[in-house]
């Protein structure tokens, strides 16, 4: 096959084995860096490495070309063993313009490879990036292995004769040239991307040709040019066999909800008001109409959750999704769902707060809002996926719990999971745990608030069923009959019942699994999107022979049954969170453990190194 032949004729050059590489592609929004990153990812997946990726979009507003806020980046981490994060600091940075360099250089490792498109380092762009002098001319970049390539010029040269496209279009092939170069550098085949281009531009043969030429030209240039003496090989990783795909958290969340609908044999009704970073779930689900999925773009978040409640009353899987500010707006209506004991799922893709905050950045600061952000004693169940792929599984779980226990469930994703991607081993439908959803149909002895002895769930009796006519609402209900009741004892009983319904979910969820020894000096407790970095950090501690273990919560209300008991088995408990210590607060209150909070609120995930440093500090103390 073509690629191998290419690979052969480069054997002369020195090849070095690496087990992990972190690359970041950075350029202007218009430079197609996301595409470049995705292509490198897919090819790398095919080669059999483990991968984790993280795109870094500019903030919501499109910024002027060449400006700092306009910089778009894509980082990927690939390895011959399994990895769980996109990596702390890139080993390689490809910077397509000065702004990209300015924004991303601080992250590049000392001595890291730095590839820049010199053609873009002109007067104007340097000014936009706020460079007084040209960094690639002065020697401010001494600390890196700088490769200065006139990419634009080279692309034009390569395509001039064979391609009939306007100059503008030709220049837009730059990113594939850079991709080709990186393929050579890390010994990847070209043909997956060659094929992809053919499929992608089926009806634009000229574009296929142009980009394919650019790709090959980049590869050939690296191969021929003197500057690259070495290239690198990363062995395939030992990965569980199966069919894989790359998936982002938002994609997985949407797919999980569709799966729940199929498994439960109930139509999915998704009501949402667009908001970053949750909007893609709406976009994804709105394309799934052939699954009977109904999507409703509401006038605001309150209407969205209310419509979801209405659809649940009518027997659909009622779903609404938003981000922090939207969850705040939904809080009164979620109380109605608690009172009417209807099964809805509320997706909250957390972002930087408070208020409008940092809409495109990640954060975990809505846990306490999810627990307590409603008037009165108003408990709901809360789940949180740990990885992009886990979003699929936990979305199914959210609906399983909501429908079995007749209770609203809040599902806490975040910006990092939402846009981050990882290879995901695709499950087969028949392997998915089906779950039963039964409607009451028998009028005999029917009471809207009669209860299942195990779960205390009330029956789901939907309009259209003769003999089950009943009224629900937000005023306190008499147990069993569901009639309005202002009776003091009944109120206490119902407050207790709603609380107890949540507690009993603990019988229905898996125990926590401990990563590492089941007891010891330090336990690291995490939840949600920090799974990757925490687990990697703890793994390093294991390598260093430290008595450090970790547990990761995917069920936050109620807690898994064995949580308290596990906490008792460790001398110290450390809780890293992308907030000021919200889970830590709940743990301290519930178990009276002196849990140590390790907060980070910078709109970014934890670096493994930040965690290992903190772990050692607490460990040694």
């Amino acid at each position, binding site marked *: 096959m073509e690629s191998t032949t290419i690979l052969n004729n480069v054997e002369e050059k020195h090849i070095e084995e690496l087990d992990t590489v972190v690359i970041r592609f950075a350029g202007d929004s218009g430079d197609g860096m996301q595409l470049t990153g995705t292509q490198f990812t897919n090819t790398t997946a095919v080669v059999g490495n483990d991968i984790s990726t993280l795109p870094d979009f500019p903030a919501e507003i499109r910024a002027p070309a060449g400006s700092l806020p306009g910089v778009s980046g894509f980082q990927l981490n690939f390895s011959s063993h399994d990895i769980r994060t996109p990596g702390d600091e890139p080993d390689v940075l490809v910077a397509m313009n000065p702004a990209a360099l300015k924004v991303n250089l601080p992250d590049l490792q000392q001595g890291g490879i730095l590839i820049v498109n010199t053609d873009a380092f002109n007067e104007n762009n340097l000014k936009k990036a706020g460079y007084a002098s040209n960094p690639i001319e002065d020697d401010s970049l001494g600390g890196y292995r700088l490769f200065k390539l006139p990419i634009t010029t080279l692309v034009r040269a390569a395509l001039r004769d064979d391609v009939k496209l306007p100059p503008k279009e030709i220049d837009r092939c730059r990113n594939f040239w850079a991709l080709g170069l990186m393929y050579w550098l890390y010994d990847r085949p070209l043909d997956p991307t060659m094929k992809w281009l053919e499929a992608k531009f089926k009806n634009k043969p000229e574009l296929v040709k142009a980009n394919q030429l650019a790709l090959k030209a980049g590869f050939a240039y690296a191969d021929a040019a003197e500057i690259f003496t070495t290239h690198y090989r990363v062995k395939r990783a030992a990965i569980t066999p199966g069919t894989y*795909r790359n998936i982002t958290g938002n994609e997985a969340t949407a797919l999980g909800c569709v799966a729940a609908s199929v498994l439960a044999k109930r*139509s999915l009704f998704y009501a949402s008001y667009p908001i970053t970073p949750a909007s893609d779930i709406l976009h994804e689900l709105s394309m799934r109409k052939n699954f009977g999925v*109904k999507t409703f773009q509401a006038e605001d978040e309150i209407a969205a959750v209310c419509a979801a409640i209405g659809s649940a009353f009518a027997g659909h899987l009622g779903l609404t999704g938003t981000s922090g500010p939207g969850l705040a707006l939904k809080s009164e209506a979620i109380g109605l769902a608690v009172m009417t004991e209807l099964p809805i799922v509320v997706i909250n893709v957390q972002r930087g707060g408070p208020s409008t905050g940092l809409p495109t950045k990640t954060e975990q600061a809505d846990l306490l809002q999810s627990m307590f952000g409603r008037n009165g004693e108003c408990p709901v169940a809360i789940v949180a996926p740990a990885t992009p792929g886990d979003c699929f599984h936990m979305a199914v779980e959210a609906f399983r719990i909501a429908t079995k226990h007749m209770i609203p469930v809040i599902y806490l994703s975040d910006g990092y999971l939402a846009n981050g991607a990882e290879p995901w081993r695709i499950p087969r439908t028949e392997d998915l745990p089906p779950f039963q959803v039964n409607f009451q149909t028998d009028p005999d002895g029917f009471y809207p608030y009669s209860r299942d002895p195990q779960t205390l769930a009330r029956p789901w009796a939907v309009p*259209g069923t003769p003999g089950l006519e009943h009224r629900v609402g937000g005023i306190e209900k008499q147990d069993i009959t569901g009639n309005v009741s202002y009776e003091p004892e009944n109120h206490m009983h119902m407050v207790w019942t709603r609380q107890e319904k949540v507690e009993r979910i603990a019988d229905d969820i898996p125990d926590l699994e401990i990563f590492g020894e089941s007891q010891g000096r330090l336990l690291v407790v995490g939840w949600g999107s920090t799974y990757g970095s925490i687990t990697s950090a703890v793994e390093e501690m294991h390598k260093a022979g430290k008595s450090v273990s970790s547990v990761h919560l995917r069920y936050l209300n109620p807690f898994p049954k064995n949580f308290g008991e596990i906490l008792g088995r460790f001398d110290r408990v450390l809780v890293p969170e992308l907030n000021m210590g919200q889970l830590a607060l709940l743990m301290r209150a519930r178990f009276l453990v002196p849990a140590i909070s390790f907060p980070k609120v910078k709109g970014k995930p934890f670096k493994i190194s930040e965690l290992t440093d903190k772990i050692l500090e607490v460990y040694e103390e």
Partner: protein
Amino acid sequence: MPALPGVKGRVMSTDANVNGGGEQTPPVKLTRKDFVSDQEVRWCPGCGDYAILAQVQKVMPELGIKRENTVFVSGIGCSSRFPYYMNTYGVHSIHGRAPAVATGIKAANPELSVWVITGDGDALSIGGNHLIHAIRRNLDINIILFNNRIYGLTKGQYSPTSEFGKKTKSTPFGVIDYPLNPLSIALAAEATFVARSFDTHTNHLQMVVERAMHHKGVSFVEVYQNCNIFNDHAFDMFTARDVRDDRMIELEHGKPLVFGKEGDRGIAIRDMRLEVVDLNNGASEADLIVHNEKAPDSYLAYMLGRMEYPEYPVPIGVFRDVDKPTYEDMMRGQIDEAVSRMGAGDLDKLIRGGDTWVIE
């Protein structure tokens, strides 16, 4: 793989009962009593709400809809207690949000007959936005706004329909907000059916409720309702039996706009203004506006809806009644289209979507 929800036979198993108990089989004739729930009615003695409840309960059986296929949805307010008294399905939701809840119910199961009961505060103050959006989407739901021009449940603050200058608990010096006209708002929100009646005019009220029910698409009905505790006699100056004929006008499709005890006055338009003309001197029937519920534009309905006493007679009846495809039908249509174009969804295909690779 399992049967696809919402695809096979278009509507999901929830609706089975609906179809099972389906519209096909001739409905058993029900009576008013069948629609009376076991809950004690809790309005102040003399409240206009009683009359409206009675008419709705009376009309229901005549419309031949089944109790189990009927859902009453309300917000919060005295009027919003309504669903408790109907022996149908019901949701007494939260303040202002009934249209949104009803949207979810109707979109989920278009076979249901969905009614929204709301008050002037519930619908036009906190709920104004949901109201206009539910209206513009033209779901086939029936919205009945009990307009007593006051906040009843919270004991007497002014509402968006309270008269300018009115002294209430929250405005001891008089209201300085200009009131909203519910009909204008509904029409501006592209309503396909707009009507008005009042609590004590039983036959007319029944007629309007029936018309609303029969209209396919959103129906907006304003009902003047007397709150005898906090805003008594709010409408008497034109609804009182003795003055009614001279101070109100009943709109009828295709008929010229005539009113008055002697039927000797009418409404004409003269250089872009509505005018009350006297048929006894000068004006003739030919000068009068002929009412047209079906006018493609909402101009006429808008104009008539803005007539107010004392300058004009207060109009009641159906202002507008035109047909447009409903939201839920189009939603279903898109699903059908998707299924026929892409085939019923296959979960395995879907999750394998995009580039995949195999690790042995």
